[in-house]
C-alpha cells in the first residue's frame, strides 16, 4: 500500500474521495481551508468555494437530497453561520450520506473565539467523530459516510487546529464509487412544515437511542490497556489530547474515544471497572466530564487540566504532576513522571514582539494610513485587513465576525444619531468577506438609511487563508473561468448612489476619496482595488525596490508610521551628531511606492536598475 504524508486536512480530502463523495463545498477558514484545496485535485468530485458556510451546507444538502454522497467543510465559527440549515438537516436526515467538518481552534491561532463545537453536535442530536491524527482523519472521513447512511443523519467530523495542520503517515486506498441514488421525492421527509417536522422529531429521538447503542460497539471507541502500576489510572481521551498523553504518560490505561456523541456509557462503565481512578482528558470545555458526572461516574477532568487554550504536551505533563503532588491522582512519589521535569533552558532578557503585520506593499495599508487623518469610528471585519488594528496604524475600533463591519456600523450610526456624540462611521471589509455576508448588511444600510462609508478592500482574492478564489475573481476553485461578480455594480444595484473605485497605491487619490465620502450625507462605498501583494510577487513583473537617500532624510519617521516591515530606522552620525534616519530593507521592499508618496522631503525614490 502506498504511504502518503498528509496533513489532517489532506487526509480528510483523501478520505472523502475514497468514500465516493460526489459533491464537496466550503468557504475558506483557518484551520479548515486546505481540505477543499486538496479535494480539487480529485477530478471525480464536484467541488466549489461557496459564498459562505450556510450556502456550502445548503448546496451539499441539495446534493444529499439528490442521493449523492456530499460533504462540507468549515472552521468552528463557520458552523455558526451554517447552523440554520444544519439543525433542520438533523430533522430531515439524509438521502446520500452527508458529513461536515467543524475545524475547531483551541488556542485561537487565527480565530476570534475558541468555542467548543462538540456541544453543537449534541445540540443537533447528531453523531460526532473526532480523529487524533491524519491516519484517523482519513479513516473517520470514510466511516462518517457509512454512519450517516446507516442512521440517516448528518455527521459532524470535528478536528482541531493541530489535527488539521499536523502531518502524519496515511495509507492510500482506492475510491469506492457510490452511485447517485436519484432525487428523493418524499415531501413528508424533506418539507419541514410543522406537521412533518413533529413526526421527524420522534424519528430523530429514536435515532439518538440507536446511536447510543452504536457508540458502545463502534470501533472508533476502544480500550487501550496500560501496563505496570500506571494501568490502574484510566484516562478517557479524545482528539489530539490523546496523542499528547500517549507520549507523556504512556503506561496508563486509555479509553480512546473517536465517536463522542452520544457517549458510550456502557463501554465507559466497563472501562471504569478495570481501573482505580477515572480521568477525562479533553481540550476546552468539560463536554464529556459533565455528561459522565451526570451519569454518576466519579471522574476528574477540569480539576486537573486547563479549560482554556491547548493542552500542549508540557502543559499536560505539568498538570499531571501537580495533580499527583496534591494527591488528586495516585501517582507514587518515585514515579518517573516526576523526573520528566522538562529541564527547560530559559531565555533571559528577551523582548522581541513579532506580531503578524500587513505585508510590505499590502494594498490595505494606505486606507488605514489615510483614515488616521480623519479619525472616524472604524468597524472592522475578518481578514488580513484586521491587522490595521495593530500599531502604528491602530485604526480599528471593532471586529466581531464575518460581515459585522457593515452592520455594526449601521448600528453605531443609529445609536449616535440625533445625540451630541455623533462621529462619522467607516466599515472596512475585504472583497471575499463582503460577498460572504457584508452585502446583506449593505442592503440593510441603504434600506434603513444609515449614513456610513463602507471601504471594500478589494485585493482580488481570499488572502488571509492563502489566496482562494471567490465570485468576484472570475475563476472557479479549479482556476477555470467563471462568471465574474462586479462589486461596484452589486453595490449600485442595492441602492448605493455613491460608489467609487480607487487604486490604493495612488495615495493622493485615495485620500481625497476617503475625505469626501466620510463627509457625504448618505451611504457610500469605496472600493480600493489592487491585487494582493503576494499575488503580485508570484505573478507580477519583477520588483524594483525603493531606497532612502540618507542625505535628504530628516528623520521625521512619517514612513515608519506606515508600519511597513521593509522600513527600519538606523542610527547615523551627521557632523558628529547622532541622528535616527529611515532605511529600506531592499529584499523586503515590494516597490509599492507608498512611502515615497508620503515622504515630505522626497527622500525616497525607486532604485536605479544597476546595469
Amino acid at each position, binding site marked *: 500500500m502506498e504511504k502518503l*504524508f498528509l496533513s489532517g486536512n489532506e487526509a480528510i480530502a483523501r478520505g472523502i474521495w475514497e468514500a465516493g463523495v460526489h459533491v464537496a463545498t466550503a468557504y475558506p477558514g*483557518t*484551520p479548515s*481551508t*486546505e481540505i477543499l484545496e486538496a479535494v480539487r485535485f480529485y477530478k471525480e468530485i464536484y467541488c466549489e468555494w461557496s459564498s459562505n458556510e450556510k450556502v456550502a451546507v445548503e448546496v451539499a444538502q441539495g446534493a444529499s437530497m439528490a442521493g449523492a454522497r456530499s460533504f462540507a467543510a468549515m472552521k468552528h465559527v463557520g458552523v455558526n453561520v451554517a447552523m440554520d440549515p444544519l439543525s433542520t438537516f438533523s430533522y430531515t436526515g439524509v438521502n446520500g450520506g452527508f458529513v461536515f467538518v467543524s475545524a475547531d481552534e483551541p488556542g485561537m*491561532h*487565527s480565530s476570534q473565539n475558541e468555542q467548543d463545537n462538540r456541544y453543537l453536535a449534541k445540540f443537533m442530536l447528531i453523531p460526532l467523530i473526532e480523529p487524533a*491524527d491524519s491516519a484517523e482523519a482519513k479513516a473517520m472521513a470514510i466511516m462518517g459516510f457509512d454512519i450517516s447512511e446507516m442512521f440517516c443523519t448528518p455527521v459532524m467530523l470535528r478536528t482541531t*487546529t*493541530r489535527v488539521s*495542520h*499536523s*502531518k*502524519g*503517515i496515511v495509507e492510500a486506498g482506492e475510491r469506492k464509487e457510490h452511485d447517485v441514488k436519484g432525487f428523493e421525492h418524499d415531501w413528508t421527509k424533506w418539507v419541514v412544515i410543522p406537521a412533518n417536522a413533529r413526526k421527524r422529531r420522534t424519528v430523530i429521538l429514536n435515532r439518538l437511542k440507536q446511536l447510543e447503542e452504536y457508540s458502545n460497539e463502534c470501533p472508533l471507541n476502544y480500550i487501550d490497556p496500560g501496563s505496570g502500576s500506571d494501568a490502574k489510572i484510566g484516562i478517557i481521551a479524545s482528539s*489530539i489530547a*490523546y*496523542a*499528547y498523553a*500517549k*507520549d*507523556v504518560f504512556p503506561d496508563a490505561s486509555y479509553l480512546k474515544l473517536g465517536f463522542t456523541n452520544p457517549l458510550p456509557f456502557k463501554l465507559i462503565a466497563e472501562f471504569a471497572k478495570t481501573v482505580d481512578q477515572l480521568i477525562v482528558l479533553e481540550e476546552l470545555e468539560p463536554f464529556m466530564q459533565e455528561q459522565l458526572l451526570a451519569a454518576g461516574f466519579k471522574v476528574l477532568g477540569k480539576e486537573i487540566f486547563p479549560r482554556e487554550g491547548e493542552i*500542549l*504536551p*508540557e502543559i499536560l*505533563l505539568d498538570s499531571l504532576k501537580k495533580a499527583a503532588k496534591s494527591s488528586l491522582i495516585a501517582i507514587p512519589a518515585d514515579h518517573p513522571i516526576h523526573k520528566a521535569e*522538562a*529541564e*527547560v*533552558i*530559559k*531565555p*533571559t532578557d*528577551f*523582548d*522581541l*514582539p*513579532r*506580531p*503578524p*503585520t*500587513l*505585508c510590505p506593499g499590502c494594498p490595505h495599508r494606505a486606507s488605514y494610513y489615510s483614515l488616521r487623518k480623519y479619525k472616524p469610528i472604524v468597524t472592522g471585519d475578518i481578514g*488580513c485587513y484586521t*491587522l490595521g488594528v*495593530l*500599531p*502604528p496604524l491602530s485604526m480599528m475600533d471593532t471586529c466581531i465576525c464575518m460581515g459585522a463591519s457593515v452592520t455594526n456600523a449601521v448600528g453605531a450610526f443609529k445609536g449616535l444619531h440625533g445625540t451630541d456624540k455623533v462621529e462619522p462611521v467607516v466599515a472596512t471589509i475585504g472583497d471575499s468577506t463582503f460577498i460572504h455576508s457584508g452585502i446583506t448588511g449593505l442592503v440593510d444600510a441603504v434600506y434603513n438609511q444609515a449614513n456610513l462609508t463602507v471601504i471594500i478592500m478589494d485585493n482580488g482574492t481570499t488572502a*488571509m*487563508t*492563502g489566496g482562494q478564489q471567490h465570485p468576484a475573481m472570475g475563476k472557479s476553485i479549479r482556476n477555470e473561468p467563471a462568471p465574474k461578480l462586479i462589486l461596484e455594480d452589486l453595490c449600485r444595484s442595492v441602492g448605493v448612489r455613491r460608489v467609487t473605485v480607487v487604486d490604493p497605491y495612488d495615495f493622493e487619490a485615495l485620500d481625497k476619496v476617503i475625505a469626501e465620502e466620510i463627509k457625504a450625507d448618505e451611504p457610500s462605498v469605496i472600493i480600493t482595488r489592487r491585487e494582493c501583494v503576494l499575488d503580485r510577487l508570484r505573478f507580477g513583473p519583477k520588483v524594483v525596490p525603493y531606497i532612502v537617500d540618507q542625505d535628504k532624510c530628516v528623520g521625521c*519617521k512619517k514612513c*515608519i508610521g506606515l*508600519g511597513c*516591515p521593509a*522600513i*527600519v530606522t538606523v542610527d547615523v552620525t551627521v557632523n558628529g551628531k547622532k541622528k535616527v534616519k529611515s532605511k529600506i*530593507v531592499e*529584499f*523586503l521592499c515590494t516597490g509599492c511606492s507608498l512611502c515615497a508618496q508620503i515622504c515630505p522631503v522626497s527622500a525616497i525614490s525607486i532604485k536605479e536598475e544597476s546595469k
Partner: protein
Amino acid sequence: MSEGKNVLLVGVGGQGILLASEVISQAAMNDGFDVKKSEIHGMAQRGGVVSSHVRYAERVYSPLIMKGTADVLVSFEKAEAYRWLEYLKPGGMIVTNTTEIIPPVLNVLGKEYPHDILDRMKKQGLKVVVVDASDAAEKLGNPRAMNMVLLGAISDLLGFTAETWHSALNMRVPKKHLDLNLKAFEEGRKLAKAS
C-alpha cells in the same frame, strides 16, 4: 534504524521553513521511521513567528515537541532561536542563520533588536552553530535557497545518510529548483563542517 529525533525549525513567515521540514520528514520516512510534523497556518504567517515541529521515531503519537526535548533547534532568523529556547533539550544543538529581520513594531514600542543575541547564547553555554545561510544562498544566485543551506548545515545531526537526504530532496523539491537546492544543501554541509 538509527535513533529518532525531535527537530524544531523556527523563523519568520515566508522563509521557506515548511519546505525544509517537509524534506526532513521525507528523509525520515525513507528510513522507515514513523513521522509527525506540525505547524500553524493563517494569521501567524503574515510576518509573524513561524515554527515547524518534526518528530520521528519507531512510533510517534504527538506531532508537537514537548518543551525541553528538541534535539536540534534550527533558526532561520538570527534571534528567533532564543524565543524557542525552552524547547531545546539540555545539551541540544542550535543551528542558526545570521539574517536579522527586525519587526516594524519595535520602532513604535521603542524597543531594541537584540543584535548581540549570538554572543549571549554562547555565554549561556549553549551549543550554537552559526551559518551565514542567506549570504551563501545569495552567492549561489537565489537568496530563497537559504532554507536548503540550513538544511545542509543540520544534515549530519539527524542521522540520515547522504543518499537518504538526496532522495528526500529529489522527492520534495520542485524539479526546476532542484539543481540550485542541491548545491545550496551541499554548501550548508560544508559551512557547518567548517564552523
